[in-house]
């Protein structure tokens, strides 16, 4: 491997890392603003114009807070928990294709850290690892509420991963590949051969199942039972304070960002946008516009996450399990069958 490639990847990784962190930071701000607007309020507006510096203030506050490690907790695991949560949240972004290839001089730069041919499986793996952060943290706190929250998180993630995986299988039957870049490229443009190219129009049911599972996997409302305040004090992070708590909260927002990116890539055409090759623009410009298009989709999904959170109340735990096992899994299997039938007929 040449040095330039290493350097190029390194810069790309740094940029993506930075962007995920900044997006997560501003998601906290956006969450409060969206909540406020949906409730006819104003939201944070004191730190800087329109409260723009609120995330910095929050971050500084988190760092200044007293660090409490309960004497009854298991010391090392107590620290491993949040570290693992934030680590797994951050590494998911490696396989997401942020854009097409950028040509600078004679160099062709691939706007994806790595195009492994098991892209989706990698994401699944990383997402399932994420539950260890919560599980270990909840266990190490040595507090019954934390433990209950952690158990809830683990069983919820396991249940919804199945339905999510099944909904992806139907998608893979159409795409024939696991590589996220190839899936994104297959959805080129917006319209071809008399039908939309984006997968959401070929897999509407699959998409609905996927997005519901994504809500459950990221522990977002209405599936935020692991941190259900009314029953569990603070859920798995009851005993956490200072930046360790910050990491848990932050990991949730990064997860939201990554799952929005995955949804945009798998179902909403990724970096493709309508008429991208009929405008007569140069390749590089199309690529950059593609990146912008992807980010618009991601921001929309993040907004959607928040919009849902401030609209519907959370499920009861048995309803959650009912929905996962008795509704989503059979639906996902039916979706596979239907997809098979349609794919054979309209080949």
């Amino acid at each position: 491997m040449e040095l330039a490639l290493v350097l190029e990847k390194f810069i790309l990784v740094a940029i993506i890392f930075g962007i995920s962190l900044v997006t997560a930071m501003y998601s906290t701000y956006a969450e409060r603003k969206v909540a406020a607007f949906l409730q006819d309020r104003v939201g944070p507006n004191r730190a800087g114009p329109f409260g723009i510096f609120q995330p910095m203030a929050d971050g500084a506050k988190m760092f200044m807070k007293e660090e409490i490690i309960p004497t009854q907790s298991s010391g090392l695991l107590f620290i491993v928990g949040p570290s693992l949560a934030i680590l797994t949240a951050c590494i998911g972004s490696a396989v997401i294709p942020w854009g097409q290839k950028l040509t600078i001089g004679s160099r062709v730069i691939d706007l994806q850290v790595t195009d492994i041919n098991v892209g989706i499986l990698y994401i699944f793996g990383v997402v399932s690892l994420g539950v260890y952060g919560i599980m270990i943290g909840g266990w190490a706190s040595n507090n019954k509420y934390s433990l209950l929250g952690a158990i809830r998180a683990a069983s919820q993630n396991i249940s919804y991963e199945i339905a999510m995986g099944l909904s992806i299988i139907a998608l893979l039957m159409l795409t024939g590949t696991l590589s996220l870049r190839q899936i994104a490229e297959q959805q080129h443009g917006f319209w071809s051969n008399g039908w939309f190219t984006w997968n959401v129009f070929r897999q509407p049911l699959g998409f609905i199942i996927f997005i519901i599972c994504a809500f459950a996997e990221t522990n977002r409302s209405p599936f935020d039972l692991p941190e259900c305040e009314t029953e569990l004090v603070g859920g798995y992070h009851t005993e956490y304070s200072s930046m360790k708590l910050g990491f848990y909260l932050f990991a949730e927002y990064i997860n939201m960002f990554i799952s929005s990116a995955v949804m945009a890539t798998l179902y909403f055409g990724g970096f493709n946008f309508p008429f991208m090759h009929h405008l007569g623009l140069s390749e590089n410009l199309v690529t950059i516009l593609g990146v912008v298009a992807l980010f618009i989709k991601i921001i929309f999904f993040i907004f959607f996450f928040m919009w849902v959170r401030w609209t519907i109340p959370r499920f009861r735990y048995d309803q959650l399990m009912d929905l996962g096992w008795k509704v989503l899994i059979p639906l996902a299997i039916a979706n596979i069958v239907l997809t098979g039938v349609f794919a054979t007929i309209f080949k």
Partner: protein
Amino acid sequence: MESLTNKKKVLEAKPLNFWERAYLPAIAQGLSITIKHFFKKPVTIRYPEEKREFSENYRGLHSLKRDEEGRERCTACGLCALSCPAEAITMIAGERQPGEEKLYREEKYAAVYEINMLRCIFCGLCEEACPKEAIYLDGDIVPSDFLRKDFIYGKDKLVEAPLNQ
């Protein structure tokens, strides 16, 4: 039981139909309601910059009044302190010396007059009790402060500004 108000309504728990059981239409409906609120004007009043309009008879901060000639009206009779359910008012009376006729209307006046704003419940009974029309709750909201002792308002804060000569 027999309904006395005519407002009784018998509700039947009907089994949900398919679309109701599917959740999603109801969720979409909920989302459409919340998004409408997204574009509504916030109802917030941004307090320090903006103030809610007080009603005519709003009971705010007390002020000790002066008469037409700019003399303090209060005669330290203590009726306000006596009527105060929160025991927020204390005072020390003083006798008017010759030459102070321009300052105090009556021969006896309040040398010290203190209201503890942390005790006061803004009931307005002091205002009603006063025979000299000397105290009115016509001021603003009590401003915040850091120390308890700063909430004990003396004459410097309570007495109206002297008339312009």
